[in-house]
């Protein structure tokens, strides 16, 4: 019974931790089908003020404003791409956590592929160099063949 007291205390403390209070605002939609899109957008768009948070995580006033703006634009039947473009013309590409492929970002998008290809190349080259030594083909003539047979026979007899 006494063990319960510290546990209850822990639960109580946890329930008041900032995590529980993170962005608990209620968003109302005329059509519930907009909600998953809203969730996707606020998670994929970046808070311009707080650098390393998305709009969903941030409680800064600018994020609150932008969340409200996204809700408004969704209600206006804008597509996800239109909403992203709308914010991009105002806040620049910085706001997109998933940047588009263009001349500034091709290196970013391309480097994982390049690294994988480079790894493959190294593996292939390495294998090609190692393989022959493992399965080396030794030409054997009939004399060698006889000697080998004799050796094997000796070994059999010794057992």
């Amino acid at each position, binding site marked *: 019974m006494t063990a319960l007291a510290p546990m209850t205390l822990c639960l109580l403390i946890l329930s008041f931790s900032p995590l529980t209070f993170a962005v608990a605002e209620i968003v109302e939609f005329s059509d519930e089908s907009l909600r998953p899109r809203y969730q996707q957008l606020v998670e994929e768009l970046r808070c*311009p003020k707080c650098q390393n948070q998305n709009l969903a995580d941030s409680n800064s*006033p600018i994020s609150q404003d932008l969340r409200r703006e996204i809700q408004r634009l969704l209600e206006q039947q804008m597509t996800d791409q239109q909403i992203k473009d709308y914010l991009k013309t*105002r806040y620049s590409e910085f706001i997109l956590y998933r940047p588009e492929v263009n001349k500034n970002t091709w290196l970013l998008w391309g480097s994982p592929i390049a690294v994988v290809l480079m790894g493959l190349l190294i593996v292939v080259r390495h294998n090609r160099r190692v393989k022959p030594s493992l399965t080396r083909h030794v030409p054997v003539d009939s004399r060698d063949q006889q000697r080998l047979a004799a050796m094997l026979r000796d070994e059999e007899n010794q057992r």
Partner: protein
Amino acid sequence: MNRLALFVPLVLFAGLSLVLLLGLDKDPSELPSALVGEPFPAFNLPALSDESRRLTEQDIKGDVMLINVWATWCFACRIEHPMLNNLSAQGVKIVGLNYKDQRASAQTWLADRGDPYVVNIFDAQGSLGIDLGVYGAPETYLVDAQGIIRHRRVGVVDERVWNAEFSELYERLTGGKQ
């Protein structure tokens, strides 16, 4: 194996270090500006001094001017204000964008600290702020006579920033006359 090939990892590492080293010099809080070279966004908002007076983008055309985003809750604006008073005294036209503020406290602020603004746009909801991509007051835009944004500064404009970023462009746009 070609001995030179052994240096490939070292060269790659040196290249990466150089890129990262250059990155250290950049201010990560500075966003690339999407609106430089673009016309000032359209708006229709009341004036701070007079609720019934409507201001639109037409009101900021015809002259080279600064648009200064400020608010009474913005601490850095306090530091910036004397510089704006200075510029205004030198004949620079400044239009204020009072951003997400209370009308009464903004008016008191101007009465207490001096009013460097030709006129103030009262943007209580921050709608023009979103159209401009404002993410932190103070911000200052240099707009030419055609209403095109030529430069943007996020943060305080002081003597140093004015000389480094604005003054030359301003002189050029105004043709030296003030």
